[in-house]
């Protein structure tokens, strides 16, 4: 059932309306604005002598506004008058590279968390080993790009990496099915253990001991510049990685959201809510559970393959058990059982750790300045020890904060950020009568 608030007296009359992507013009406008911000606003800005394009858009907006005021055609909703102005602003500015790289991390975690969300939030299969499938995807893709003998024309067309992304997804999906097999018999905590086994067997054993040794370069696969190439573009700058991320993430979200509207998605939700009841309704729970594992593994594999474009060398240490737990933590913070949750959760976690960093760095600088003016004594000795340690052991503080954040969210806000988001949205949608 759709959870969209329609204007008073406006009702859905059939199923396809109820399941529609964009049910009101306002929603369509908001989504298009979001996409425009993601694809145009963040990465690009017009060069100086092309600024007139933005002014053309602004003029178009003025024209639309005049048409709206004078003629008021019913098809031209008020939102579309605003849209050219927004585009004009987005064309003029872009984010600095640092913010883009932060966004890339957010996107990477969101992609990983989407697969986890599918398993935990929509099918009720708790997994603590998702990093294994991300790692499989990354390694399959890296091996294909580095060692596979591609026909000349594919390399020239820059198709090797895109093809390897798909193949990586499929292989990671099958690998995920392998570890999903016990889910036919066990659930709950026992299933958690088998997924943990997937993590340890795949990353700590197979990848570290065998796959990472291929080529005899020790632990890390270095990816020479120019190997990661999509079409004519070599992915070598923050902007290009960001655009890759935005594209893949958008496709993934669309894919998952569409899947959840289908028969498959409804079957998964039925299994999550009560698997025995689902079975009596004629759902083959083993098939659908394995299908969930496949899709989650596929998403994980694509995520891992994407990771190649953001790194210069690939090593099994990029995919520790910590990453699996981090992804589950993200969906818990974001909200279990919503696609927003995966994205809001990673936004929250990345921003928290980044802002901690911004907090600690000035603190140590400030302390260096004032250290000489302090009275020598116990207190100063303690600070002398503590302040440099804060900077040095920052990774551990990050871990502690992450752990506390998970605990706090589960205790005080078990529905996660997406529930807050939904409430805030409703407040404005129903304003001024939000009761």
């Amino acid at each position, binding site marked *: 059932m759709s959870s969209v608030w329609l204007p008073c007296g406006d009702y859905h009359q059939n199923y396809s309306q109820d399941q529609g992507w964009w049910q009101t013009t306002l929603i369509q406008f908001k989504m298009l604005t979001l996409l425009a911000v993601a694809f145009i606003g963040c990465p690009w800005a017009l060069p100086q002598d092309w600024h007139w394009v933005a002014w053309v858009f602004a003029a178009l907006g003025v024209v639309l506004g005049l048409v709206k005021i004078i003629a008021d055609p019913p098809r031209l909703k008020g939102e579309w008058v605003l849209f050219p102005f927004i585009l004009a602003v987005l064309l003029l500015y872009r984010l600095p590279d640092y913010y883009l790289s932060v966004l890339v991390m957010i996107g990477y975690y969101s992609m990983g968390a989407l697969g986890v969300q599918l398993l935990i939030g929509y099918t009720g299969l708790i997994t603590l080993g998702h990093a294994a499938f991300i790692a499989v995807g990354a390694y399959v893709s890296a091996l294909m790009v580095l060692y596979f003998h591609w026909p000349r024309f594919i390399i020239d067309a820059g198709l090797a990496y895109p093809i390897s992304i798909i193949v990586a997804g499929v292989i990671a999906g099958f690998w995920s099915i392998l570890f999903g097999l016990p889910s036919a018999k066990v659930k709950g905590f*026992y299933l958690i*253990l088998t997924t943990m086994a997937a993590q*340890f067997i795949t990353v700590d054993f197979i990848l570290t001991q065998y796959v990472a040794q291929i080529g005899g370069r020790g632990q890390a696969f270095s990816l020479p510049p120019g190997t990661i190439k999509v079409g004519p573009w070599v992915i070598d700058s923050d902007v290009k990685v960001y655009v890759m991320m935005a594209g893949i993430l958008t496709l993934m979200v669309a894919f998952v959201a569409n899947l959840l509207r289908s028969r498959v998605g409804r079957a998964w939700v039925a299994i999550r809510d009560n698997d025995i*009841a689902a079975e009596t309704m004629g759902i083959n729970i083993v098939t659908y559970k394995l299908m969930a594992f496949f899709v989650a593994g596929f998403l994980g594999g694509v995520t891992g393959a994407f990771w190649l474009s953001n790194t210069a060398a690939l090593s099994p240490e990029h995919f520790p058990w910590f990453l699996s737990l981090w992804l589950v933590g993200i969906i818990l913070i974001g909200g279990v059982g919503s696609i927003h949750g995966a994205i809001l959760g990673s936004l929250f976690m990345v921003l928290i750790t980044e802002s901690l960093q911004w907090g600690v760095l000035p603190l140590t600088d400030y302390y260096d300045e004032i250290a000489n003016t302090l009275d020598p004594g116990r207190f100063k000795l303690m600070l002398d020890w503590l302040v440099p340690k804060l900077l040095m052991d920052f990774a551990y503080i990050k*871990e502690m904060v992450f*752990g506390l954040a*998970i605990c706090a969210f*589960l205790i005080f806000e078990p529905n996660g950020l997406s529930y807050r988001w939904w409430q805030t949205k409703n407040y404005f949608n129903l304003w001024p009568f939000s009761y």
Partner: protein
Amino acid sequence: METFVVAMITGILVGGIYALVALGWVIIYKCSGVLNLAMGELTIIGAYVTLTFYTAGVPFIPAVLLTLVVGAFLGYLTERIFLDKLIGEPILAVIMVTVGLSFFLKGLVEFIWGTDTRVFTPPVFSIEPITLGFLKISPVYLWSFILSLVLLVVLVSFFKFTSWGLSMQATADDETAALSLGVSARFVYAASWAIAFMSAGVGGALLGNINGINISVGHLGLLVLPAVVLGGLNSIPGAIVGGITIGVLQNLAGTYLDVYFPGGVKEIVPFVFMTVFLLFKPYGLWGWERIERV
């Protein structure tokens, strides 16, 4: 043959320590239904606390006893702060709180004690192996086994014979009935965490004697998970048998499989075994089979 026997014996001896930690895990699960993934961190904390006392000049056995006291206090605190509010929440929430807890504790340990490997100096047990016929066993293993055996007996008899232990068993069996008979469930939960912290702490101290202490002792703490699954989640004898089985399996794998699969086969085998085992016996050896109805 000789290598086989040596591997078996070493396995049983190390398995005794696993059994101790696994017992702590099962106690928490039995009494409060919490599936605890922070067991590895509890083990590390125990190891470091003992080490701190020991380096401060306290002899080993009193240091272990002090660790028990500190562990009981920390366990009580943990339960009160983090898990008290989650009674009756869904399984994922409770598990993930323990995961969050494990991150927090791990970060804390790394922040306080650093990540370098530390050893007990001077060594607690002599390095000279004890010779029994053709067997050569290093005293660390033997004494660890004996110490954990003693603690196992103490814990099991605590459960069987003291009124606290009995009230914990009653809560595990039927919480409502126990509440109506005047057992304080909150006390039981806190006590079970205190006991788990204590047993994990001693386990950590003993494991730390074998290879030195660093953050990877926590990975050994994770090995209790296959052990408890093997025995069935809510069975105390199961935890002991499971722990010893995992110890033996590990050592046999280290002896025989390491030739064919060089690398960390020792750490992986328990998990592989567990995955395959679950396919055939989903509830472990003595776990309660849950019959589900719609």
